[in-house]
């Protein structure tokens, strides 16, 4: 049981680290050889990697610790401005999707607060 919990925590930490690295990579200016198309693709990947990393945990929301839930809510809030900068089609879809994930994590937090 403890091993399984440890493995889950490790996977989450790895996912978060990968997402962080991807975001950092996107923030770094590409070299002279990289054209605008490449820059855009990297930026897209970064926000999507972070989005996936956040929203992949909705199924586990009930088993996450309060601190983990708070961290996910904060990550949603940090990611939102990046999604709001996307083209209109993706913006309206992914803002809604991100909000759904955030609302769920906040809902579980509120449930614990009221329980």
């Amino acid at each position: 049981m403890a091993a399984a919990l440890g493995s889950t925590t490790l996977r989450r930490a790895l996912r978060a680290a990968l997402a962080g690295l991807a975001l950092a990579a996107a923030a770094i200016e590409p070299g002279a050889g990289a054209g605008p198309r490449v820059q855009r693709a990297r930026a897209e990947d970064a926000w999507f990697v972070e989005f996936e990393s956040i929203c992949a945990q909705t199924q586990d929301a009930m088993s996450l610790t309060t601190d983990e839930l708070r961290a996910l809510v904060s990550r949603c809030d940090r990611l939102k401005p990046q999604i709001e900068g996307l083209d209109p089609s993706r913006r309206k879809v992914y803002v809604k999707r991100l909000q759904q994930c955030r609302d769920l994590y906040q809902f579980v937090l509120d449930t614990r607060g009221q329980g």
Partner: protein
Amino acid sequence: MRRIVAMAVLVLAVAAQAEDTGGRKKRTPPQEFGRVVMSNQAKRAKVASVVFDHWLHRAKYTCRVCHVDIGFAMKTGGTDVRAADNAAGMYCGACHNDRTKADGGGKVFPACRAGSSAEAPGCARCHSGGSDARREHDFASFTKDLPKGRFGNGVDWEVAEQKRLIKPVDYVDGISVKRAAMPVQKDFALSGKLPGMPDIIFSHAKHTVWSGCEGCHPEIFTGVKRGTTKYTMVEIFEGKYCGACHVAVAFPTLDCQRCHSKPVQ
């Protein structure tokens, strides 16, 4: 005896509800149950409304794919779908893009593009409001071998899925988020309000086959403390709570015993 009286009261309440909404309510034919007419953008673009039947899509995809991963709202008029969105691979265009493979081979037909004539064959398949466009899939042939249900589409979709007669896809590449399988939550009972009314047994397991946590919480079920939200059948018939799905798409609330299923002690 008490159970019979309670059921009779419930039936009368349903009848009264129908009366309130304009006299005798005609039951929707099975092939039209779950039909959604999307007209908010169509009217502005001066094209025919999109007529969407849930039965075909729900046999092939889970609710979660469309209402969580693709982002279709649960409320009528809640999604602002434009041709440009479909062309960008969002909403209908997530699958209707000329790339997605259909389960019978071939490709899923593409959504019509901005500027196309609404009468063009590709467009008229969905923009069919007000016309008698022939559908590719015939309801009667499609459902003839599926287990029968008493109401709604006349199909017991739950049993159809359990028997693997339908295999709704829960993941669309490039759209869905990879998630671990959800730990199964225990069923729980909600007390019926009328004396003798069987309690409701709510099965998380049955619901999570089709949807995920964020499909229901907190948008549909907002209460954070068990027992504080008082559900009424009137609200449910109006499309709140369970009624968000079980009025127009999932088996309808007329099928009382499917939820009020705990034997009375």
